[in-house]
């Protein structure tokens, strides 16, 4: 029998960044509600701010103005330099397979920003009275804690060949991002050729930070199985890929969970 959840989570849907971000707060303390509401408001503001600064769809956003050359990086809000610096780190760590500077149409940190924003939103929550929080930005998930009582969160990975089914289930510690061609058609660009490409059906990366996990998932979706070696070399990050023929490959410590609830 699966153990009962401690309480129903406080569930919030935020319409932002061209998608829906869900926030679930698992509380152990019934009186935490007011404090959680304040933290939730902060988290929502973080997401909306990220959207306002980094939306490439909004012509007047700082990132759009930077892309057009209307402003310099120094003239943009501070988050822009921060994100670009972290994109450079992600490019380095991914062996060049993630490269916002190689996108057609100029620099585009979108592949990093969604995860970065969700991770920042998660930072609005504090552990007091809360046993775990999940910020799910349309399938890229930042979290801390768990269900309470030492039970970790269990997160499904959508089956790239049949999104109504789960391909795998993982025990989540921190973040998980999944990238693949099924999402919006073939939108992944190989930075080495500048062309759309994908060598796997989907790629998932777990690790402490969702921004980096998101960038790395994009990178290995482009790199294919060779990308697993890149992740294997990174402390704290693990990866699973589902190949075009439906088989699985994963790094040594990828946190796969048994399909059925144990116990």
């Amino acid at each position, binding site marked *: *029998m*699966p153990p009962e*959840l401690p309480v*129903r*989570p406080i*569930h*919030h*849907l935020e*319409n932002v*960044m*061209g*998608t*829906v971000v*869900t926030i*679930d707060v698992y509380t152990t303390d019934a009186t935490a509600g007011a404090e959680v509401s304040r933290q939730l408001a902060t988290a929502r503001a973080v997401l909306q701010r990220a959207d306002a600064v980094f939306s490439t769809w909004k012509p007047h956003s700082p990132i759009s103005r930077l892309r057009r050359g209307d402003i310099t990086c120094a003239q943009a809000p501070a988050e822009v330099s921060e994100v670009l610096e972290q994109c450079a780190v992600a490019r380095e760590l991914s062996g060049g397979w993630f490269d916002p500077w190689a996108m057609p149409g100029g620099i585009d940190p979108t592949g990093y920003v969604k995860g970065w924003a969700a991770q920042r939103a998660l930072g609005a929550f504090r552990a007091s009275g809360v046993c775990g929080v*999940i910020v*799910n930005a*349309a*399938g*890229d*998930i930042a979290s801390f804690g768990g269900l309470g009582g030492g039970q970790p*969160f*269990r*997160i*499904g*990975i*959508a*089956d*790239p*060949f*049949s*999104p*109504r*089914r*789960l*391909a*795998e*289930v*993982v025990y*989540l510690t921190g973040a*998980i*991002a*999944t*990238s*693949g061609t*099924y*999402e*919006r*058609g073939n939108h992944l660009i190989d930075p080495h050729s500048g062309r759309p490409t994908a060598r796997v059906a*989907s790629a*998932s990366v777990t690790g402490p930070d969702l921004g980096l996990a998101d960038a790395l998932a994009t990178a290995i979706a482009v790199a294919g199985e060779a990308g697993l070696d890149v992740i294997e070399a990174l402390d704290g990050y693990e990866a699973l890929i589902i190949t075009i023929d*439906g*088989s*699985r*490959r994963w790094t040594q410590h990828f946190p*796969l969970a*048994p*399909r*059925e*609830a144990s116990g």
Partner: protein
Amino acid sequence: MRRTPIVITATLAGLVGVLAFHTTPAKLTLATAPAASGSAQPSAAASPGRSQRGQSSGGASSPPRSSPAATAKPGATRTVVGPAVNYNFGVLSVSVTVSGNKITKVGIASLDDGGNQRSQFIDQQSIPILEQETMQAQSGNIQGVSGASYTSAGFQQSLQAALHTLGFQ
């Protein structure tokens, strides 16, 4: 996570509505859906292609979590369908279900992609939040789904309007 039977039923009915638009139902089976019984089973159990791990997915060893039918208040659940809006590949509308003052479901109420093969492929492969929510409703023991994101501006637009109608935001 518990879902009331009423909400699950509404979601599955909505899902069937989406499925009816597509011409390749073979790819769109709902083998693991608990129908309207209100019981919850892990939807992962029936997924194929796991031979790499050499691990059987087992039978239905996990007992379904019984849903508290008695707690479902018919008057407390409301579903609103947002306006039909254009999106990249056609026209769609979003439905939102609230229970009391909480949003419990977001899904596609209608979707017309004009029969274009490319767009049908994308629709089928990128089934949105509805899918994730449905999977979570079926799998009482997972707290989220990674992947299968849906980022249509049309989805956002219709959702916004539906939320507004319900008095949210």
